[in-house]
């Protein structure tokens, strides 16, 4: 048996489609803690199905009983509007507070990450966003941005970090409207998250991390400020590239001296892609690692062992990275984390 065939793993396209379709219909009860984030789970599943070309064949809808319009309607049912008591418009993660999303239920504040997920998913499903309350979402951002430039995710307060800066940037970029944010303050905040070893932490002074590094660099790219920032901080780009490539063992680790995890293929891979340096990775070795994390019944787990079953997050981000190089997969936009071709189509229609 040759070495290459022992590492060669067949891409289980049909199993993956079955996995994501199943997730859209029902999730096991141990996902209860993600009840408030259902929209993000739908986003992962829909983007993944698009990568796999599921939506290219209309007969799939019948075969797998998936109804695009139903998903679109469900997403719109989670839209909330601004009011005297509701400072963040946008989308909520699910109907966990009951069906009333009108003014009466002030607890139902729009959640920044759910708004991002909703917009990305709607576009990938071919929706034109005409029913999205763009003005309210953009003006809500003023209530979510903090004096240090960071963002909380809901009107009544939450932890603030680079994840929500990224969500805000993606929303502004997609809707083509930055009037609701203080860009300079955002820039300051991102810069304050630079670590001594060249990457970005989730909050200032914290440890360099693959996820936060992606959020910060993608945010800078979406703002169109990447080149300026690198001009200002001489040597930072080089340090950043070194940090990113140093995360590769076979697979990618999220932090120095931590274990490899498939989702970092995307967080780090996409960061390098934004910097035009993705070619510096050993893609063959990384591909072996990611492909080896495929589950027999579809999806990808974070590592290649029997203790970690596949989950939506790792399945999506594994596919997202694979989509950069596998010709039969529809690529993900490395700045937006959503279907590249659908975003391009949406953009063309807007213009």
């Amino acid at each position, binding site marked *: 048996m040759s070495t290459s065939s022992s590492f060669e793993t067949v891409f289980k396209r049909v199993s993956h489609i079955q996995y994501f379709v199943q997730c859209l219909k029902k999730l096991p009860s141990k996902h*209860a*803690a*993600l*009840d*408030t*984030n259902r929209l993000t789970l739908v986003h992962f599943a829909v983007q993944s199905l698009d990568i796999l070309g599921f939506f290219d064949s209309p007969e799939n809808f019948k075969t797998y009983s998936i109804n695009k319009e139903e998903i679109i309607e469900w997403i719109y049912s989670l839209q909330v509007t601004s009011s005297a*008591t509701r*400072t963040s418009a946008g989308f909520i993660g699910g109907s*966990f*507070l009951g069906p009333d999303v009108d003014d009466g239920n*002030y*607890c*139902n*504040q729009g959640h920044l990450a759910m708004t991002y997920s909703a917009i990305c998913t709607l576009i990938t499903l071919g929706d034109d966003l005409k029913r999205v309350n763009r003005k309210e979402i953009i003006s809500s951002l003023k209530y979510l941005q903090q004096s240090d430039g960071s963002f909380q995710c*809901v*009107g*009544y*307060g*939450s*932890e603030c970090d680079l994840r929500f800066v990224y969500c805000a940037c993606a929303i502004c970029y997609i809707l083509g409207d930055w009037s609701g944010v203080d860009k300079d303050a955002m820039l300051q905040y991102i810069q*304050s998250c630079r*670590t*001594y*070893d*060249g990457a970005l*932490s*989730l*909050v*200032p*002074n*914290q*440890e*360099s*991390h693959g996820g936060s590094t992606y959020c910060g660099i993608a945010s800078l790219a979406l703002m169109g400020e990447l080149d300026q920032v690198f001009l200002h901080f001489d040597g930072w780009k*080089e340090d950043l*590239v*070194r940090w990113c*490539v*140093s995360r*590769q*063992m*076979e697979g990618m680790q999220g*932090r*120095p*001296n*931590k274990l490899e995890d498939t989702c970092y293929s995307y967080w780090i891979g996409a960061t390098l892609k934004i910097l035009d340096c993705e*070619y*510096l*990775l*050993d893609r063959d*070795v990384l591909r072996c690692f990611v492909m080896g994390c495929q589950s027999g019944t579809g999806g990808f787990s974070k590592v290649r062992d029997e203790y970690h079953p596949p989950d939506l997050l790792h399945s999506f981000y594994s596919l997202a990275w694979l989509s950069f190089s596998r010709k039969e997969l529809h690529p993900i936009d490395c700045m937006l984390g959503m279907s590249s071709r659908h975003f391009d189509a949406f953009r063309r229609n807007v213009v």
Partner: protein
Amino acid sequence: MNFPTFDIPERALELTALCLRFNPANYTTWWFRRQCLASLSTPPTSDFESKYTYFSENFIANDLMLASKLGGSNPKNYQVWYHRRNLLEQSFSDMTSDSDTECGSVLELVNEELEYIAGVLDKDSKNYHAWSHRQWILKIINMESKWTAEIEYINDLLEADVRNNSAWNQRWLVSHRGSKSKPFPVEAASEEVNFVISKAREDPYNESPWRYFVALIKEQFRLIASSPEFVSLVDTCENALKEVKEKFELESKKDGMECTHLIAAHIDILEMKGDEDSLSSAVEFAILLESRYDPVRKKYWKLRAQQLQVVAN
């Protein structure tokens, strides 16, 4: 922003505890619970003012315990950690009281919270949430005694695992007293380099101390560039690095070039020195890493060698 008031906040409070047992990640439930706690809390004086929400002492103690119970099997739950922070925000940030008793009880709370975090880190020494929370406390109380004690805590963690990058990051935070505008004092830099080298010696393959080492020197470079103090520091550092490599080769009978993070650090130092010989050595090292010693990163090292060549010319 004025939210509607409740008729029976005590009952609402009970219900939130029930709901949280079903889903401790429901951020709306946590927020609603804090609304109930706040409405049931009475500030110490009638003219009490703070930019943070006031919670009564007994509520703080009780809810920290609730958060510990719910956080136990969910150590990576953002909402539970945020709840802890919300409970403590007002008393920690307003800790400027002249009264010994008042300060004393808050200090006790600080110690208990740091101990709780240490307990979480004992089970997972790299829990990102735990470290964020710990950093928040140290920065907000900003007590010299706590910064000093933290160095001891970090040293214990590094004794247990010299590869703990979170502990290294914490060391950077603490030695800079939580501020990016307070670079490492020049006099103390040599001593810190000695500490880092002693740790690097334990495992020269370990990335963490080498990145810390390079960052230390880069910071000094930005401060004192081509001054004699910097030249002397860099020479000391280069010699220390070479000594670690030689000792490793002697003891292990292996090629020191395999310690790619050590070599990468050496390349960074040589680049900082910037003279023709140093740059030429740096290019040589990069080419060796590319061609033989760091195959996964060979494209990166090729690029690095090219970039160094450009500087040399």
